[in-house]
């Protein structure tokens, strides 16, 4: 079995994440898509790590997980704050700032 299957899978997942970020309107879902992107990158890292027999890639995944957790905490807090202000998390309806 070839390694590029893994890379291909992660590329597909990454792209789905990108499409999601660009098309969705709900802030939470956009954020989840960003998490999907991070997750697919983790897959890439693990498969490279497996290919090289090298631990560093997995270490990076570990840190990426930490970052994802931290991002989740802050991101969800921001979403709660904006929901309290606007009663919506629809990014197309939150538009005080333009140009």
């Amino acid at each position, binding site marked *: 079995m070839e390694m590029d*299957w*893994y890379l291909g899978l992660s590329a597909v997942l990454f792209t789905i994440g990108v499409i999601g970020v660009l098309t969705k309107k709900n802030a939470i879902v956009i954020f989840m898509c960003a998490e999907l992107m991070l997750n*697919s990158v983790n897959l890439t890292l*693990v498969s490279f790590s497996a290919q090289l027999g090298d631990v560093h890639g997995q270490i990076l995944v570990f840190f990426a997980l930490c970052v994802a957790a931290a991002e989740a905490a802050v991101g969800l807090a921001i979403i709660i704050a904006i929901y309290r202000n606007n009663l919506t998390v629809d990014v197309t309806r939150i538009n005080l700032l333009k140009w």
Partner: protein
Amino acid sequence: METYLFILFATLAVAAAIGMISSKDTVNSALFLVLNLISVAGIFLLLKAQFLAVVQVLVYGGAIMVLFLFVIMLLNLSDEEHMLSRFSVRYAVGFFLGVIVLSQLLYAIASVTGTLPQIHPEMEQVGTVEAIGDALFTVYLLPVLVTAILLTAAVVGALLLAQRNISDKVNK
């Protein structure tokens, strides 16, 4: 056997990802993401990264996604319109960009077909808790400490943003 497992997990992961971005219901989206994360954890196992597979399920699937679900329930978010129900330039641009990114990445990856070796034989040792722990607390000690501060900062920040009462400017 591995090939079949890979195909199974990969199909699940992609299907869950597509399900996530096409679902109308935010809760469903979140659940799809959990499914995706777990499938990816399965693939980690195939790649002999046991530690990360466990962490993936525990931290990502367990902690983070629960947080997501909690917030979604807390805010009682209404359903979103179906992704394809209203075609707009936004979608077109998003789709177009997505296709470009995908094709570039696929091209990049396809160009290395056949050059990559099998899973490295040392991987059995590399993916274990011992190996990773060893690296983390020797070479990567400083980053681990940084992570401590990062998580502290995130907690303080989350408190700061979500804790205090919002003043009178809320539009009702």
